[in-house]
């Protein structure tokens, strides 16, 4: 029986976290978490409070992540944590106060490198009843900010980090974890969502200041319903730039999505065929913008033109 994480008492969640029996289900992936640091407990109560959670393992999970000290010494002296997704990664140890960042980075690595049921694209996805918008951008391209703004426009969140494509029909599946906001985008998103939706800011991280926008209960409740992409966006943020969009040919869109996938080559022919279906079913644009307001007006117009 899965219940919301926030309904568990502090003590029982803390014990389960230590034992590694916290099992959360978010859309298409189940996750098992083990951790020793209390900072993580507070973060889970805040950012994951509405996520269906079980404190007794019921099945093999897609993801199994541990957040622990890199060695016995760093468990006690000048304490540090690392994310351990079950395979060796060159992760820099972080101070315990940044264990939420270690958790999120570890979960991202796990989805990117271990989950091959889907072709995985480094992109944000949001959807309405008529279809989805897939936003593919490098870090700093504004996909999380844009996804947050679109959530306020009535879209449900699939992910701000991954487009998860079923290769048989090119449907996109949701894994709505908290939206990662960096630097200036924290205040921008706080302004239009309200501060109550944003976690405490983690300062001085290797990526600058980071905060997370909590996922809405409705995003979680509807996370088992896939959607088909109607619009693909490749945004570039250039401070002060006037907004403009260029429609891409289908082949151009396909070739731009391939390098954003972590497992396209691994999955081979099935991924190619799925990606063909994806680009055939969606209009694609490169957009350049200088502010969130500019980008939103442009995206609304493009979404309307794509039948959303």
């Amino acid at each position, binding site marked *: 029986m899965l219940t919301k994480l926030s309904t568990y008492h502090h003590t029982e969640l803390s014990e389960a976290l230590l034992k590694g029996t916290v099992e959360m289900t978010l859309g298409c992936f189940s996750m098992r978490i083990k951790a020793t640091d209390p900072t993580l407990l507070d973060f889970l109560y805040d950012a994951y409070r509405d996520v269906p959670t079980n404190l007794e393992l019921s099945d093999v999970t897609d993801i199994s992540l541990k957040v622990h000290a890199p060695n016995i010494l760093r468990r006690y002296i000048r304490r540090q944590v690392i994310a351990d997704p079950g395979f060796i990664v060159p992760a820099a140890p972080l101070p315990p106060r940044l264990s939420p960042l270690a958790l999120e980075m570890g979960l991202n690595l796990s989805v990117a490198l271990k989950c091959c049921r889907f072709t995985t694209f480094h992109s944000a996805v949001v959807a309405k009843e008529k279809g989805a918008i897939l936003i593919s951008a490098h870090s700093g391209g504004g996909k999380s900010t844009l996804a947050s703004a679109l959530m306020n426009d009535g879209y449900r969140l699939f992910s701000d980090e991954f487009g998860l494509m079923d290769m048989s029909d090119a449907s996109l599946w949701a894994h709505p974890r908290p939206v990662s906001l960096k630097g200036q985008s924290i205040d921008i998103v706080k302004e239009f969502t309200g501060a109550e939706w944003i976690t405490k800011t983690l300062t001085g991280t290797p990526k600058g200041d980071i905060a997370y926008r909590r996922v809405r209960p409705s995003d979680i409740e509807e996370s088992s319903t896939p959607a088909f992409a109607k619009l693909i966006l490749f945004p570039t943020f250039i401070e002060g730039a006037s907004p403009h969009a260029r429609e891409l040919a289908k*082949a151009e869109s396909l*070739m731009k999505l391939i390098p954003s996938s972590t497992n396209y080559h691994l999955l081979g022919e099935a991924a190619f065929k799925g990606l063909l279906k994806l680009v055939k079913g969606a209009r694609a644009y490169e957009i350049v913008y200088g502010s969130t307001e500019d980008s939103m007006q442009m995206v609304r117009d493009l979404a309307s033109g794509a039948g959303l």
Partner: protein
Amino acid sequence: MPAGPYSDDTQWCADPDKIILETLEDVTVAFHKVSGDTHILNFMSAAVVAVLSEGPETFASATPKILNYIQLDEADCPDGIIKETILQLDEVDLIAPSRGNQ
């Protein structure tokens, strides 16, 4: 990977079991099943792959068939472009010397 030394007698072929060709609007996209690489082909490259998928050809024997495929006269086709295209396609493994050469 390129074939290495070749001659005018080298016979080239494309293995249709290893390549998926798909037309997207006016562009041909090729997926190579073995390498997992995806390529955009211009009309000349697409014609070369299509013709060499039918069977092995030398530069000389392939040329009229490729020109016929794209409905061009020899006079309209710059010197050496077919040979250059064959060598480029060899570089990305979409074609290779046929086994009879080895």
